[in-house]
């Protein structure tokens, strides 16, 4: 028999926190139900427990809670969520309650939303190339199945379009298998929510999507659990149901801000810019839930959106994210201003798992060399650009002029791409060779000689 004791011993309410007195043995992380005097119920979670009191964080507003007429009961379990395949095609709110229709959802199992860490020896190393159809990603910073690759963006840049395009186009090369999508909207505006909803509806992705939406005006503390609900669902779909799941979490900056809010309400010693010292560990507990497990058919790939406050990549949120994720896709305001959708700046972008997902049999034998060489030349083009800004284009050497031209063409022909344009990896690499062929072949030292002989287009060197 389980007894549910109602405590009416609230001692203190401050921000999202409630201190309940005379509680003898609340579990750490236990879920509590808070009953207001008008009968409304809210959920909360124990953050600190001792033999005299428990500190509870409330998922929801604390308005209406009072000291003498609100009661708290401890539910004897930690926060968990129902999971099932039937969740695909549905939209939930930030606490996992259906938000689209009043129809119920039937669940196959119940899971702790914090999950458990994947044992590193149980992981399989991600190595399957995902063709997104976007040259800047496929060619230079390849995404593989089971990777966590965030988009580092800034306000005003087309990161939502990019995420929608990737979701629409992504498939593993040579298969038409599409991904199941788990979408976590964290503090997103209604407009952004509608954008994704309409896009997914248009492309038919919606029936394959489970969305958890915490809107900008929903309680901010709820944002702590929204991504965890999404990831728990994703883990079930991937590792119990064998699906390939693409998780999109947007916007991680809102998540981190909620974490800071909670930390300051708890009067913790702040770290950089007021964010808590454990933010790295906390973010890791989300990002690390991507991956592949040996002997299980599914996978979780994460494409998380991080908007960098004041375009600053050294801000703690993108900084800590970059230290955890397996690379990043970096969006540039400069490229965007020049009308170069998708505005991905390769210098600054990186895919750590690329080397394992490309090459003969996966993409094409020359992929690594082409990518390295394009990077090297584009970096030189940038140097030539800044030099020409000082001494003028006329004073540049022959080779610097060539780099300058290369840079222009690289941006216009390779990086720039339409929202509905889907390039195969062969298309992408061929555009790459068109560009490399502008440079004398002796300079292409990052490409193996045999590939130069095979792919280099002679007589295209700019005079």
């Amino acid at each position: 028999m389980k007894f549910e004791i109602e405590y009416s011993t609230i001692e203190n309410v401050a921000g999202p926190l409630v201190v309940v007195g005379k509680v003898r043995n609340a579990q750490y992380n236990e879920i509590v139900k808070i009953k207001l005097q008008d009968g409304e119920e809210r959920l909360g979670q124990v953050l600190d427990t001792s033999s005299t009191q428990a500190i509870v964080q409330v998922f929801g507003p604390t308005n209406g809670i009072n000291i003498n007429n609100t009661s708290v009961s401890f539910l004897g379990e930690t926060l968990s969520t129902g999971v099932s395949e039937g969740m695909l095609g549905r939209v939930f709110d930030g606490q996992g309650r259906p938000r689209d229709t009043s129809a119920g959802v039937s669940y196959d199992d119940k899971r702790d939303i914090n999950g458990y860490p994947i044992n590193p020896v149980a992981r399989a190393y991600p190595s399957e190339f995902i063709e997104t159809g976007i040259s800047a990603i496929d060619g230079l910073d390849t995404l593989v199945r089971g990777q966590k690759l965030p988009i580092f963006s800034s306000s005003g840049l087309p990161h939502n379009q990019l995420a929608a395009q990737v979701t629409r186009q992504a498939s593993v090369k040579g298969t038409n298998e599409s991904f199941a999508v788990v979408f976590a909207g964290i503090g997103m505006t209604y407009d952004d929510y509608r954008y994704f909803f309409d896009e997914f509806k248009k492309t038919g992705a919606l029936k394959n999507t489970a969305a958890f939406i915490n809107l900008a005006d929903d309680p901010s503390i709820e944002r702590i659990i929204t991504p965890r609900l999404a990831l728990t669902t994703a883990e079930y779909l991937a590792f119990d149901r064998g699906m390939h799941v693409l998780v999109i979490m947007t916007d991680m900056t809102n998540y981190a801000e909620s974490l800071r809010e909670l930390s300051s309400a708890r009067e913790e010693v702040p770290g950089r810019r007021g964010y808590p010292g454990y933010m790295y560990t906390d973010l890791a507990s989300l990002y690390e839930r991507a991956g592949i497990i040996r002997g299980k058919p599914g996978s979780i790939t994460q494409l998380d959106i991080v908007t960098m406050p004041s375009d600053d990549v050294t801000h703690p949120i993108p900084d800590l994210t970059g230290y955890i994720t397996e690379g990043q896709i970096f969006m540039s305001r400069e490229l965007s201003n020049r009308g170069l959708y998708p505005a991905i700046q390769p210098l600054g972008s990186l895919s750590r798992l690329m080397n394992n997902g490309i090459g003969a049999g996966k993409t094409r034998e020359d992929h690594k060399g082409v990518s390295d060489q394009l990077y090297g030349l584009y970096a030189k083009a940038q140097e030539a650009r800044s030099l020409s800004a000082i001494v003028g284009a006329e004073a540049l050497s022959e080779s610097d002029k060539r780099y300058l031209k290369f840079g222009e063409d690289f941006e216009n022909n390779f990086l720039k791409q339409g929202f509905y344009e889907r390039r195969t990896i062969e298309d992408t690499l061929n555009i790459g060779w068109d560009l490399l062929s502008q440079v004398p072949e002796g300079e292409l030292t990052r490409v193996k000689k045999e590939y130069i002989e095979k792919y280099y287009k002679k007589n295209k060197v700019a005079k």
Partner: protein
Amino acid sequence: MGHIERISGPLVIASEMLGSKMYDVVKVGDLGLIGEIIQLKKERAVIQVYEDTTGLRPGEKVESTNAQLSVELAPGLLGNTYDGIQRPLEVLKAKSGSFISRGLTANAIDRNKKWKFYLEKGIKNGSMVKEGDILGYVKETEYLSHYIMVPLGIDGRITGLKEGTFKADDKIAVVEKGNKKTELTLIQKRAVRSPAKFTKKFRSEEPLITGQRVLDLLFPVAKGGTAASPGPFGSGKTVIQHQLAKWSDADIIVLALCGERGNEATEVLTEFPELKDPKTGRPLTERTVIIANTSNMPVAAREASIYTAMTIAEYFRDMGYSVAILADSTSRWAEAMREISARLEEMPGEEGYPAYLPKRLAEYYERSGKIEALSGKIGSITLVGAVSPPGGDLSEPVSQGTLRVVKTFWSLDKSLADSRHFPAINWLNSYSLYLNDLNAWYVKNLGEAFVENRIEVARILQKEAELKDIVQLVGAEALPDAERIVLEIGRMIREDFLRQSAFDEVDAYTSMKKQAFMISSILYFRKRADDAIKSGVDLNSILKLKVREDISRMKETKEHEVDKAAQRIRSEIDSQFSALLKEYKENNR
């Protein structure tokens, strides 16, 4: 036995703990989660718990094991992967599946495997032994004798010692002192937080050969030395660590993956069995111990993982081996310390880190070094720490505390990484303070020329940087040929020598012989080019020489073809320059 009074994240306060000692390991709650006492307040103990504390309740029991956090040391360590408190991850997987659940225990050393134990010459029953003495050995791998030593703190008369085949926890001998009898097995335990005893420490005069050209030529670390590689994310810290783990010529590698990505551990576990130790030709796993406490595993165990790694390293060092610890990343360790410190409500120092951070860093790096062990064997620990400064800004406390104690600094550069110049080690900011100590070794093993070439390369790169500043203002065309050639040689050194691909089969590792060939070829080209310019030859015609492409592809030379390639390139340089000079003279007759 005590009881839980309060739980806050990884920290538990227990009451009725009188009699327990600082740093004792305790079992917390009904699940028996493993923790360590880090503060005592009268009858209360503050405990950091190495597992997730979700679900614990005040009132649950807390039991002290009356022992400090320690590791098991015995044959069977090599090739194993452990978490931060030395639980073997394969065993945990067998017990709880793909995800690590809580309250699991597992022996670090397999108790079922049998080992053949041989006696050391001169050891006889009845003789007196003291701590650290070698009793015998087990052939743990084809190339490695795993010496069985008298555990620290034990001495007396040895009896019952015999050769034979034993399980790790079988009795192999007894040490008697007065009435006290201590049974010895193949396993010994050492507490992780205190350095192991040794006889004396030396300066090291031998480099750790890494097969990485920028390190071996310009910024070597001594065997027994320390190095740090701070850099922002994406600058290649982990790749450098992995390259060192794969190719450096230490006998034993201890890889401490501290608070980093799970897939990085997976990468090592997938690759290492396939790769061969350049010294012995055996799979790399046979010389490697991995401590993997990734970022999503409990934070207190992350704090301990660094010490677990060091204690295992010290054990192999005491057998007379050269050990390299690669700690990736020490910043995550420091952050774990900060998190615990904040929960203890200690007064924070800089950026929230505890005031004792610099002391802990220095103490840790000081556990490296070349030493004479208690047994008289000479061993060493080389310690390479990756540092992950927030925003890549080295003014933060972990970088600063580290740079004060390490003697080799590999400065990782974001802009190099962005242009895919790897290893992204900045050749102007990095340094090695071991160069003088190591010079004699280089002269003896590689000849005077190697040392001279290094000085020459450093000088050219410095000069190139100065000239580049001028070029930024006036353009390269404004420089005289004698200076433009420096820019060109600088570029060749950077692109054709320093840049090295970790992912290319041939390029990933370069022997010292091949390095010497590569750099002397570039410098020989430089000498001929200088002479030609002095004789009036135009720079542009030098830049068109075909041999430049051969030089740029030297890195593709296979190790067994180095001699041939060296000869060919030298004669190509000679003949092409001679032709150039001849043509010039004919045109200017």
